[in-house]
């Protein structure tokens, strides 16, 4: 069971932000967990996050978990990035761990707003690949109006979003060049779709295990 759920406003959507665990060390900043496509924030901090000494929070993206399922779809990774930004505006500067599409969203936000993302850990999970580096043959979906989370339109749209490597690098390169952190981006995923392979190839991006990555991120200020 989550300790506390905070409701945040993102335009017409109410986002559910869950406190999953208190910190052992009050001086350590929060860790925000971004779930994979079709998932939701876990009920409690998963064991693999045990190395993190600080408090742990989980966000339900728009159309997922306890967050609003809006009418009519229109999902983009950039909208999920704004979801996460609004969560960080509540929590203050935090470290981010992303699963699947949460990893993609996390690295975009780390590049867009480095002052609130104090390192991001990218891990495997649903939605890591997206739609590849360019649009597939077009298909216009007409799903039934969703009756709940996760929104069928979110699953459709966010599994097809194009992720050109040079688009991602527009976020990553300034971050790697300007960040004062030892490790602004840590990659712990097994799978490396093209956008992520391009991230890993950037100088300074660290590849390691989840446990070692969390320890590294906790050490940096």
């Amino acid at each position, binding site marked *: 069971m989550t300790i506390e759920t905070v409701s945040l*406003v*993102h*335009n*017409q*959507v109410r986002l559910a932000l869950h406190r999953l665990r208190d910190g052992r060390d009050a001086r350590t900043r929060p860790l925000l967990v971004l779930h994979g496509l079709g998932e939701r924030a876990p009920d409690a901090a998963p064991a693999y996050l045990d190395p993190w000494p600080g408090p742990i929070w989980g966000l339900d993206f*728009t159309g997922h978990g306890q967050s*609003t399922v*809006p*009418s*009519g*779809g*229109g*999902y*983009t990774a*950039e*909208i999920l*990035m*704004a979801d996460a*930004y*609004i969560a960080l*505006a509540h929590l203050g500067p935090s470290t981010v761990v992303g699963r699947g599409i949460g990893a993609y969203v996390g690295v975009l936000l780390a*590049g*867009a*707003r480095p002052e609130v993302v104090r390192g991001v850990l990218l891990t495997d999970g649903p939605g890591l690949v997206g739609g590849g580096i*360019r*649009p597939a*043959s*077009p*298909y*216009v*979906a*007409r*799903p039934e*109006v969703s009756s709940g989370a996760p929104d069928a*339109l979110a699953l459709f*749209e966010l599994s*097809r*979003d*194009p*992720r*050109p490597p040079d*688009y991602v690098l*527009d976020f990553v*390169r*300034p971050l790697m060049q300007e960040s004062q952190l030892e490790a602004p981006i840590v990659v712990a995923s097994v799978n490396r779709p093209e956008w992520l392979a391009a991230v890993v190839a950037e100088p300074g991006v660290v590849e390691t295990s989840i446990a070692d990555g969390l320890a590294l991120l906790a050490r940096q200020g």
Partner: protein
Amino acid sequence: MTSAPPITRAPGPPGEILPEFAGAVRPDRARWVDSSGVRLAVYEWGEPDGRPILAVHGGFDFAGTFDLLASLLAEHGWRFVAFDARGHGDSEHAALYSWGADLRDALAVLDTLGPEPVVVLGHSKGGGVVLELADALPYRLSHLINFDGLPSKNSAPDLTDHERRRWRKAEIEGWLDHRATADTVVRKPDTLDGLARRRHKLNPRLPFDWIRYLVTIGGRHDEDGWRWKIDPALRPGGFGPWRPEWSMERLPGIGVPVLGVLGLELEQMSWFTRPADVVPNLPPGAQFVPLEGVGHFLHIEQPRLVADLVLDFLGTP
């Protein structure tokens, strides 16, 4: 919710006379269409049993921007159908907006026009939407008409990587801050002329009186003044992974008759596409008409000329 979207123009304050514009004709009918739970305002000119033309407007426009063209086609027997995109005009303000959602909304309106293939027309961003509809659902279209909606590689600003990243970062920062407060944003009220003057800066080639007329369709008068109806959560520009050339790549494979019309006078809202970008991508038999001395809003600058091009292309309904 009203039983149908408004056809009559928005009333102003007591005593204010609504501006007229020669040749502008409001629709004959209006109705709502539901697209996955989002209510869209749909307007029709011409006989209800006429052969339909489905028109998709550009970004930050609304169906009323066809008030000059639609009746010129309707008087030749065509049933001209246009709709306000989600968040635009009288359509519902949605929680989310995306290219894919715009395609789905266009299909929801198309689905109300019967099973026969339909003429589909798009202006500007709407031109990109109809290109993708034609690629995705070729059996639903009989003809494709594109008004200055052919984004190409030239549409991307010519910036160095470093400049592009800095520009993009500032844009994204601004957008994220906007999203964080979007629920409280309201559009700035103004007088009718004040609102028209602001819009005229974006559309400097269009007659000022036309913009004043548009205010009374795409705007409403509240106690504190006139303001555009468009969702304040929407911002011009935007960013994302989309590349303009991805739209142009749809063009060579279109299998139905194509008419492309390009305004050669470049202006702020143009795609900056030149004929040389279009010609190599035209499918066999396509008609392509570059118009000298005409800008991006070619169906507003030259409604008679453009209507004649369309009528010649389509023949009789």
